């Protein structure tokens, strides 16, 4: 029952994984189909541009207002939840958060945990942590369940199993659950329903994430379509919600536009099937619901992003995944290439704060800066601007004091020197002319191997005559310019 679930180890680099993913035609078809459809659904859900832009502006202001008083709101949230009977815990690291969760489960002598969808619990690698301590932690969102069954990680924050098609799921269910192989999606879902319903019944503890934590009323708001979130937060005797510290909003009314932005941006739905607002554990006269409700507030690098006024905007994120769906890089390389919990544009700007740039040095540069992510973001995070800022932090020397965790991961003294020489040449006309004179005469001496460029291109060789030279010649009337190359 309590088998250790091995997790695919990622020892390769982003580039290596990207190369593999690009060559996988099945994977690319699965992603292309899904992303095209998600983009269309979002577009259909916002038929009125003025309405959409007004709402995005409001969403941005609500998050900016919440962040501008974040510590106060967190204290207010804690006070109101505590008054409602919910126990609030704080964790700086994922290790601390796991310890808190484990101790709550241990106090109830729990052995089975059922989990609603939670990206923060993915950050914590809670399943593995608990499995190592003899506690089974089962995913109950259909997509997450499929991914867990195949010992994989989610490839999308909203659609965890989007990289798989129905045939792959059919084969997986056949192999792991011993059921007849069927390609019928309805039947596959019913298999999942029956298997997981037993788990909801047996579970000692339910774990969930939080979409919005409302300070004013001390309420945890969760959105979902399947009902697994309601199950996980209602059926077991204990409910533990885990969330990042940036999820708090000031007032109940603030969630009205955010909710609309979230579901329309994510899936093109006017609303999800369930919006579940939890404010307290079971009261003495009530007949169901958990006897204990806990909230674990996790930092895990968020306060690092918060410290910088520009990078703080990263924390506006409401995890809709629209930037992922619209990213030309993500659709080609897929979610697993990123090698971390959050893929795509949001992953590129949030992950460095969590794990440090040393671990994800390619994240800020794995982008064409096309700007689609920033354009669709429902809370108007200027993602391309964040990427450029992270690129700068990524090449800062230790002396320049990078502002991001493990900044300067790509700092190279050699590269810095080359740019300094380039700058000197280009700001000093005499030196520039001298350089041109030399470059055009000693052109054959350029190296034939210039790093990654020559992996796919022939080495560049300077022309025999410079443009200056040719222009001078042309203007002095010495006939047509001759011989560029």
């Amino acid at each position, binding site marked *: 029952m309590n088998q250790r679930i091995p997790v695919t180890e990622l020892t390769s680099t982003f580039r290596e994984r990207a190369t593999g993913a690009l060559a996988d035609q099945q994977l690319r078809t699965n992603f292309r*189909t*899904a992303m095209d459809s998600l983009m269309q659904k979002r577009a259909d859900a916002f038929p009125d541009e003025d309405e959409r832009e007004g709402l995005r502006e409001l969403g941005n202001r609500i998050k900016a207002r919440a962040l501008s008083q974040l510590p106060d709101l967190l204290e207010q949230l804690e006070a109101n939840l505590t008054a409602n009977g919910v126990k609030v815990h704080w964790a700086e690291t994922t290790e601390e958060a796991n310890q808190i969760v484990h101790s709550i489960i241990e106090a109830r002598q729990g052995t089975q945990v059922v989990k609603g969808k939670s990206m923060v619990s993915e950050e914590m690698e809670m399943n593995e942590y608990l499995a190592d301590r003899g506690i089974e932690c089962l995913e*109950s969102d259909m997509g997450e369940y499929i991914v867990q069954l195949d010992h994989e990680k989610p490839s999308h924050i909203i659609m*965890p199993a989007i990289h798989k098609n129905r045939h792959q799921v059919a084969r997986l269910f056949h192999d792991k659950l011993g059921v007849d192989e069927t390609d019928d999606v309805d039947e596959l879902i019913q298999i999942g329903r029956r298997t997981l319903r037993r788990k909801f019944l047996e579970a000692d503890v339910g774990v969930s994430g939080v979409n919005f934590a409302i300070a004013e009323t001390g309420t945890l708001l969760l959105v979902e379509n399947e009902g697994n979130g309601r199950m996980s937060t209602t059926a077991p005797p204990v409910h533990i919600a885990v969330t990042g510290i940036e999820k708090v909003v000031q007032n109940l009314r603030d969630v009205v536009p955010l909710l609309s932005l979230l579901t329309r941006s994510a899936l093109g739905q006017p609303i999800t099937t*369930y919006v579940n607002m939890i404010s307290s554990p079971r009261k003495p006269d009530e007949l169901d619901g958990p006897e204990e409700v806990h909230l674990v507030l996790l930092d895990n690098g968020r306060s690092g992003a918060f410290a910088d006024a520009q990078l703080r905007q990263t924390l506006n994120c409401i995890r809709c995944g629209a930037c992922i769906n619209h990213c030309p890089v993500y659709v080609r390389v897929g979610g697993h290439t990123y090698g971390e919990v959050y893929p795509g544009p949001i992953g590129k700007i949030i992950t460095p704060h969590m794990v440090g740039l040393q671990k994800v040095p390619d994240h800020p540069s794995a982008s064409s800066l096309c700007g689609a992510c920033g354009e669709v973001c429902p809370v108007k995070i200027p993602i391309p601007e964040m990427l450029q800022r992270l690129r700068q932090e990524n090449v800062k020397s230790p002396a320049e004091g990078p502002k991001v965790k493990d900044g300067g991961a790509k700092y190279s003294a050699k590269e810095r020197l080359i740019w300094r020489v380039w700058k000197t040449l280009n700001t000093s006309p005499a030196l520039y002319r001298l350089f041109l004179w030399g470059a055009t005469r000693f052109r054959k001496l350029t190296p034939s191997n210039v790093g990654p460029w020559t992996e796919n291109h022939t080495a560049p060789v300077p022309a025999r005559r410079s443009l200056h030279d040719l222009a001078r010649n042309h203007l002095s009337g010495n006939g047509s310019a001759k011989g560029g190359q």
Partner: protein
Amino acid sequence: MSARNNILQKLRSGLVGTTPRPDDFDERLVTEPWQYNPDDRIRQLRTQMEAVHTELYQVTSQNWPEKVAEVLAARNLGNLLHAPGTEHGSQLAEYWQSSGQSVELLTYDRPIEEWKDELFWNVDASVTGTLGAIAATGSLVVWPDRMEPRLMSLLPPLHIALLKASEIEDNLYTFMKRNNWSAGMPTNLLLVSGPSKTADIEQVLAFGAHGPKELVVLILEDA
């Protein structure tokens, strides 16, 4: 406590010299696009809910129990969970007795722990009241309580919800304001917009993921 203090201190040091941003919430943005005249309100609700496979029937506050019996008979179901302690629950029970219905009426009258297995596997349908509905998004507002606990609208494969026509609001914002939710929230408050569903496999929509496979809404007109 140290994690708490460390986090708060780090956040506070990032805000030195700043002031909280003003609350410039513009309620027009969440109300004006979502306003309907009384006739359109039900139409909007119906369109939204039918788009996600919800069945809606307009009945009267007198004859609705007949519709419940009809819905159950069409599906050949054996039992129905109801709440006799509520006004609508007792109305249903009375009708059941007077018309000699064969479908067994069940009651959620004990803590979940005492009948978990039965409730999880053997209840075919439930009928509950609602606090009202939101036309814009096609959502029922469900406020579970002692009489109609949280799992009552979640576990049975068929959920029949009663909605008074007069309690349909245009949008979530006006619903929230009118009912003064910010003054105090119950243990659990739900917006329910259709039967449970998932699109996690190839984005193919499938109904009956973990919650009800079917949602039937009876809109009660005051007779």
